[in-house]
C-alpha cells in the first residue's frame, strides 16, 4: 500500500517540527443545570498542527460535536465548559486562550479565522434568500470593500468547486437536495478563508464520487492556502484516506490518537479495533458483521474505571477500578508520538493500584 500517493492529502507535508495552530488542553464540558450534570467531555486534549487534517471519529453520542462547539466557543446552553483551555496560535505566533477572552476581545482576535460547518448544517441556510446571495453576503461581511462583481464571481467559483452548476446559484435552499445544501455550507465556510476549518459530518448526504471530489479539492486548497482541518465523521474508512492523524473518542474521552495508517494497520485500543472491524466491506467476500457488542455507557452515570470495559474483550480486574490515562502504547518499537488510553498498555498504573498487569493482546500489538 502506498499511502503517500494519495493526491492532495499531503501526507508528505506534515511538519516535522510541530507547529500547532489550535491546542485543546484538558477541556471538560457538562450539560445540565442540576446537581447531577452529564459530563460529556472529560479532560480532552488535542493538538491541531498547521496544514494538517485531523480526523475525529467515534460512536454516536460520544461528544464529537460537543468538542467542536466548545472549541469554537459556540456551545449553546445548557452546555457549560467546566475546565480547560483552547489556545489559538496565529501566524504571527501570538497565542490566545479563546475561552478566557472577553466577547469584545474575542471578536477582535484571530478566532475569526476559525470556520465551522455544523452537523445538520443543511438546515442553517436562510430559507428566504437565494444561495448565491447568501455566499455573497458572507463574503461582503468578511472582506470589507470587496466589490459586488468580485463577490458574485467568487461565490460562483466556490459553488462550482463543490459541484453546483451556475444555473442553480439563484435557487432557494428548499429547492436543493440535502447533499446540495450541505455543499453550499462547505462553500460558505471556504468563503471565510479560515485558518482552522472544523467540519462536523460534512459529507453525510453526498455520494462517494462527490464526496471524494470535494475532499480532494479541500485538501488541495489546504496545501495551497495552508489552513488546517478538523474532520469529524463516523466513517472511519473515509478518515483513513483523508486524515493525517486520527483521534478516536469514546464516551467523552479520547482513547487513541495516531497517524491515520497506524490507526488502521495497528490499532492499539480495543475500541478502535472494534470500530475498524464493524463496517461492511464493499469488495471481496461477504462476511457476517459483528459490530461492537453492547452500547456506550450513560454519560450521566459513568462508572469508575474504564468506560469501555463492559464491551471490551480484553478487560481484566483493574479495569473496573482504575481510569485509564492516555499513554504511549506498551508495544516495543511503536511509532513515536501515538497514544492510547487502555490499562493493557499502562502496567505502571495497574501496579500502582495493587493489581497484576496483563500483557497487551496480540491483535493490539501488531
Amino acid at each position, binding site marked *: *500500500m502506498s499511502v503517500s500517493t494519495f493526491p492532495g492529502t499531503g501526507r508528505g507535508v506534515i511538519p516535522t517540527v510541530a507547529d500547532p495552530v489550535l491546542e485543546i488542553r484538558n477541556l471538560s464540558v457538562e450539560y445540565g443545570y442540576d446537581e447531577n450534570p452529564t459530563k460529556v467531555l472529560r479532560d480532552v486534549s488535542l493538538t491541531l498542527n498547521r496544514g494538517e487534517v485531523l480526523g475525529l471519529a467515534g460512536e454516536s453520542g460520544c461528544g464529537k460535536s460537543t468538542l467542536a462547539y466548545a472549541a469554537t466557543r459556540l456551545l449553546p446552553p445548557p452546555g457549560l465548559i467546566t475546565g480547560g483551555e483552547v489556545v489559538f496560535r496565529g501566524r504571527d505566533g501570538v497565542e490566545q486562550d479563546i475561552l478566557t477572552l472577553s466577547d469584545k476581545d474575542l471578536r477582535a482576535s484571530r478566532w475569526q479565522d476559525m470556520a465551522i460547518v455544523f452537523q445538520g448544517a443543511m438546515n442553517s441556510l436562510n430559507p428566504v434568500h437565494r444561495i448565491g446571495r447568501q455566499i455573497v453576503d458572507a463574503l461582503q461581511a468578511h472582506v470589507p470593500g470587496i466589490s459586488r462583481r468580485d463577490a458574485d464571481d467568487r461565490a460562483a467559483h466556490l459553488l462550482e468547486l463543490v459541484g453546483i452548476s451556475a444555473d442553480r446559484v439563484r435557487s432557494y435552499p428548499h429547492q436543493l437536495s440535502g447533499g446540495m445544501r450541505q455543499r453550499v455550507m462547505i462553500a460558505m465556510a471556504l468563503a471565510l478563508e479560515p485558518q482552522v476549518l472544523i467540519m462536523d459530518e460534512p459529507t453525510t448526504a453526498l455520494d462517494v464520487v*462527490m464526496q471524494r471530489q470535494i475532499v480532494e479539492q479541500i485538501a488541495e486548497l489546504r496545501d495551497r492556502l495552508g489552513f488546517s482541518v478538523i474532520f469529524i465523521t463516523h466513517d472511519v474508512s473515509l478518515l483513513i484516506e483523508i486524515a493525517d492523524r486520527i483521534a478516536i473518542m469514546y464516551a467523552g474521552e479520547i482513547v487513541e490518537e495516531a497517524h491515520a495508517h497506524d490507526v488502521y494497520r495497528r490499532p492499539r485500543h480495543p475500541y478502535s479495533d472494534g*470500530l475498524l472491524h464493524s463496517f461492511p466491506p464493499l469488495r471481496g467476500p461477504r462476511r457476517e458483521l459483528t459490530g461492537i457488542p453492547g452500547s456506550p455507557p450513560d454519560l450521566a452515570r459513568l462508572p469508575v474505571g474504564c468506560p469501555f470495559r463492559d464491551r471490551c474483550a480484553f478487560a481484566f480486574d483493574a479495569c473496573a477500578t482504575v481510569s485509564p490515562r492516555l499513554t504511549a502504547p506498551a508495544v516495543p518499537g511503536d511509532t513515536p508520538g501515538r497514544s492510547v488510553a487502555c490499562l493493557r498498555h499502562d502496567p505502571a498504573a495497574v501496579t500502582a493500584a495493587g493489581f497484576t498487569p496483563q500483557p497487551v493482546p496480540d491483535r493490539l500489538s501488531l
Partner: protein
Amino acid sequence: MTAPEAAARSRGADPGDDAPVLQAVGLKKHFPVRGLRSHDVVHAVDDVDLELHRGRVVALVGESGSGKSTIARLLAQLMPVTGGQILLHGQDATVRNRRGFRAYVRRVQMIFQDPFGSLNPVHTVRYTLTRSVRIHQGKLRGAELEDALSALLTRVQLTPVERYVDKFPHELSGGQRQRVAIARALSADPEVLLADEPISMLDVSIRLGILNLLRDLRDRLQIAILYITHDIASARYFADRTMVMYAGRVVESGDSESVTQDPKHPYTQLLVRSAPDPEDLDARARGARGEAPSLVRPPAGCRFNPRCPFATDVCRTEVPPLLPVGDGRLAACWGYADRPDRPTLGSVLEVYGERPAVDEQLLAAVEGTSTEVQR
C-alpha cells in the same frame, strides 16, 4: 444474498409475493424555476419505473441531487407527480383529500433524510412518539402507552428508555435523533417503508443495529422497503435489488451483489470505484470530477455523456433505454446496444486514473479571487 437465494425467496410460500405492493410507472417530476426564464424547469425525475415487493428491500443509490429523495416524496404522496402513476396493490393510489392521505400514510411511511429538520424542536421524544402511536394504534393510555413507547425505543436501541424518553431533540446527538425518527415511522406498523438515508448520520455499530432492525422488519413483518443510501456497501449487505440514479434517471438496476461487484454502467463503475476502502487505496477512481449536470437544461442523449470517457455521437443525441445486461439486470448505456455505432466501453478506473485529481483552473480562480492569501 445471492441471486439464487433471492429468486428462491420470491418464489416463497405466499403466491401473492410476486405482485408489487407499491409500484411507480413512468414517474416524472419537474420543478418550475422562478427566474430569468419563467418556463424553465428542473428535471428532477424522468421516466422512473420502480416496484416494491413484500418482504423485499430495494436500494436507491446515486449522485447527490439525482432525484432520490424526490422519488421517495412522490411515493409518499407529499407532492403531486408531473407525470406517471403510483399504484398500491395494483390500484391507482393518488390521494385526493386529507382522509385519503391519512389512510395512505398509515400504509406507506417515510423516514426523512434529515433528523435535524424532521423532529419538532419544541416537543420531547415522549410527545412525538405518543402522538404518532395514538394516530396509528388508537388511544392508548397509562401502562399500555408506556409499554408501546418503550417497545419503540427499544427497537431502535435507545435504551435504557428512561434516559431518552423525556429529552428534547436538541439534547440528543445526531444519531440519537435519527433513531427517534425511525421509531416514529415504526409506530404506524406500515406495509411500505420509504427510508431516505436512515443511517447516514449513524456510526458503524449503530448502523449495523438499524440495518439489522430493518432487516428484521422486512423478514418478520414482511414490510416492503425502499432504502435510499450513499453507502453502497450497506446496499450490498441489506438490499435485494439496487437501482442507480444519475441526474434524474435510473441508469442501472439488478440484484445488489451483481450491481456492486460487477457494475455495468460507466457511472455505476465510477460510483463503486470511488467508495472509500482503506484496504485498497490504489484501486480508486481519482480525479473523477466533472461538472455536475445541469438539470434545468440536462445534456441531450445520455445525461452522463459530458463526463463519460466513452461517449460517442449516439450518446450525445439519443437517450439510451434500459437494456438487458444479464440475469435480471438492466443498464441505460449505449455500450450495451446491438448497433454498429455503439460506444466501446473500457475501464473507467484507467481513464480517470490518468487525470489530475483536481481542477487546476477552478482552484486557481478560487485562489485568485481570494483576498489575503498568506503563506
